[in-house]
């Protein structure tokens, strides 16, 4: 993001020298500060991940790793024996990293794909179809955004239990896979702005709603759909409570729940900080990669909202 915005002024500067502009310098200073503020915590996490637990507390202020070691990362990938881990001041806890990573990817991908697709269909109905009570239903839909998820956790849990879907991927994705009010609201705003002429022309050519939806609306809404997909994916990636309740067994346990074992082992015990930080770094990687790949698209879609 920063490279794309800085390229233009740099080129301009080579062409002609600008007089010193204090406001511009101030803006750059602010930008540098913002970058520092957002990068330093990452460095701190990295520094902690490369330390041993036993040396951390007595070196709490040093910027460099206390007793440099890759032990914490090895612990995360299950390459360190529990006895070695304990000797390093870590815990004997290991997580089945690759399995949890796979589960996290499956869980986030299914829910994202489902939620985006079905929300788009619902948003299409709310934006482009005329039917009685449309706005009332939409209002009710929006109203459900006011209900905190914790209120629905228990009824959902019971439902999933009665359906015998506990500890299955299906049970984990069901509450999210169909739609979320936010996604519908978000997409509806884009769909409302689409020109009616195109749609009418398609209708004159004999296209039905299904065809209009798939061939005209969806392709034209690629940018907001991508944004929504990314937001949903990140949200699902970080989801903790529901996967904890429903998917507690290894074969469906997701990464965020797996990280919990590093957080606390015994009551009042100090967490395995270096192990936890190493795991956090590794678990944030997929999201960073996603951002690197799609970041530009998101910025564009927010800047350029829909076709006119």
């Amino acid at each position, binding site marked *: 993001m920063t490279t794309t915005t800085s390229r233009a002024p740099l080129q301009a500067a080579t062409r002609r020298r600008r007089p010193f502009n204090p406001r511009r310098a101030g803006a750059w200073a602010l930008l540098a500060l913002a970058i520092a503020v957002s990068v330093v915590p990452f460095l701190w996490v990295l520094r902690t991940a490369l330390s041993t637990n036993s040396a951390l507390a007595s070196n709490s202020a040093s910027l460099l790793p206390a007793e440099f070691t890759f032990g914490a990362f090895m612990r995360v990938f299950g390459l360190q024996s529990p006895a070695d881990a*304990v000797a390093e001041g870590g815990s004997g806890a290991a997580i089945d990293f690759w399995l949890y990573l796979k589960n996290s990817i499956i869980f986030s991908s299914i829910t994202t794909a489902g939620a985006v697709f079905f929300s788009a269909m619902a948003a299409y109905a709310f934006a482009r179809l005329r039917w009685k009570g449309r706005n009332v239903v939409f209002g009710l839909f929006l109203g459900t955004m006011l209900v905190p998820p914790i209120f629905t956790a228990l009824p959902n849990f019971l439902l999933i239990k009665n359906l015998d879907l506990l500890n299955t991927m299906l049970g984990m994705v069901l509450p999210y896979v169909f739609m979320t009010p936010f996604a519908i609201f978000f997409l509806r705003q884009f769909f409302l702005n689409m020109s009616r002429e195109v749609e009418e022309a398609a209708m004159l050519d004999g296209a039905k709603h299904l065809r209009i939806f798939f061939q005209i609306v969806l392709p034209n809404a690629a940018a907001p759909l991508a944004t929504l997909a990314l937001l949903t994916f990140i949200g699902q990636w970080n989801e903790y409570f529901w996967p904890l309740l429903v998917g507690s067994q290894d074969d469906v346990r997701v990464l965020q729940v797996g990280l919990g074992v590093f957080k606390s082992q015994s009551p009042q015990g100090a967490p395995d900080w270096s192990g936890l930080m190493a795991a956090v770094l590794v678990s944030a990687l997929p999201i960073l990669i996603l951002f690197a790949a799609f970041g530009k698209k998101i910025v564009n879609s927010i800047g350029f909202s829909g076709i006119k």
Partner: protein
Amino acid sequence: MKKSLGAVAVAAVMALSLSACGGSSSSAESAKGEINYWLWDANQLPAYQQCADDFTKANPDISVKITQRGWDDYWSTLTTGFVGGTAPDVFTNHLGRYGELAENKQLLAIDEAVTKDNIDLSKYNEGLADLWVGQDGKRYGLPKDWDTIGLFYNEAMLASGGVTEDQMKNLTWNPQDGGTYEQVIAHLSVDKNGKRGDEAGFDKNNVAVYGLGLNGGGDSSGQTEWSYLTNTTGWSHTDKNPWGTHYNYDDPKFQESMEWFAELAQKGYMPKLETTVGAAMADTFAAGKSAINAHGSWMTGQYTGYKGIEVGIAPTPVGPEGKRASMFNGLADSIWAGTKKKDASIKWVEYLASADCQDVVASKAVVFPALKASSDKAAAAFAAKNVDVSAFTEHVKNKSTFLYPITDNTAKVKGIMEPAMDAVVSGKAPASSLTQANEQVNALFK
């Protein structure tokens, strides 16, 4: 936040679990196959993994799959497991929780097996086996380990303050002036200018080193926070233990002690309660922020494992009644009532409680096993690591322990007492406010 959400869910799921308890089935197949075993302490994982390997060697038909879960999620996943039918066959159980689990019929009574297999309960440290007999007179677990409280201290800080090891071993305490315990704590508190807590001009608002570390308000039990003090005055949590039906937080003796405890923070000898949130007390000790930490024996490995810090362990101070006091807590292994592998689970629990496994645990010098003979071996293993654990074992030898308060409604009692204690320890409410909380607590038993 997450934690409180979890607590809500656990409470609600708990209520639902009443209707969902599975019947135990005993079939010919139940002494075969894989059993699931859960524990929360990762530091003990290597020892128990070895127990599991040895067990399978002796019983080739049974394998044990051990799952370790962090303490924060342990009980919520366990309760959802009960409801969903996916709970482990055998799990590490805690005294603060098992009363409710037994009440909800989630635990398998093992009396028959204990009689049939001639388990000699007198070989465990005194009182430990009895803790696991429920109100209905049935036995719901075999003891695995025990813990007491001691004072971990920073040797370098003591030396620079001129406090000797001998002084530390002979501390006295009373709720009026705090005795030599408060004198030492005050002396070891140092402000930013290097002034000590017992010197004139001590700046209590800019303290560099606190004499005494603080873990939290201590909620209903005060296990490591204040119970080693309050219970030297002759006070006890409940009218009888286990299965008392009346709590005593309204006792003036108790409130006087708590008043003294809260004042430590106001005098600058102990951190303020709000600064302890999210911080591990052991880590703050290792970072040189406190000179003495009262903590449990299960933390020994953690305290002695820090690099660059020499740690000593002293017994808790002698109180007004002329004795020391320490909460005596013990864990046990329990079997889920819904297990399909009843016979195999019983075999595994009996193995966990046997000398074979407890000696393995002892050799790792992490906790004290429940068997007397294994306890001694653990002390020897600690000694081999140059750690003197007599501060903990002394309580057992001199019978200066009192049992973890076991009653019904422990979760609700904790829910009432936690904010009440926090208010007192942080100085926001006088200790007399505990009388009202106590009324609420005792109303639970009517």
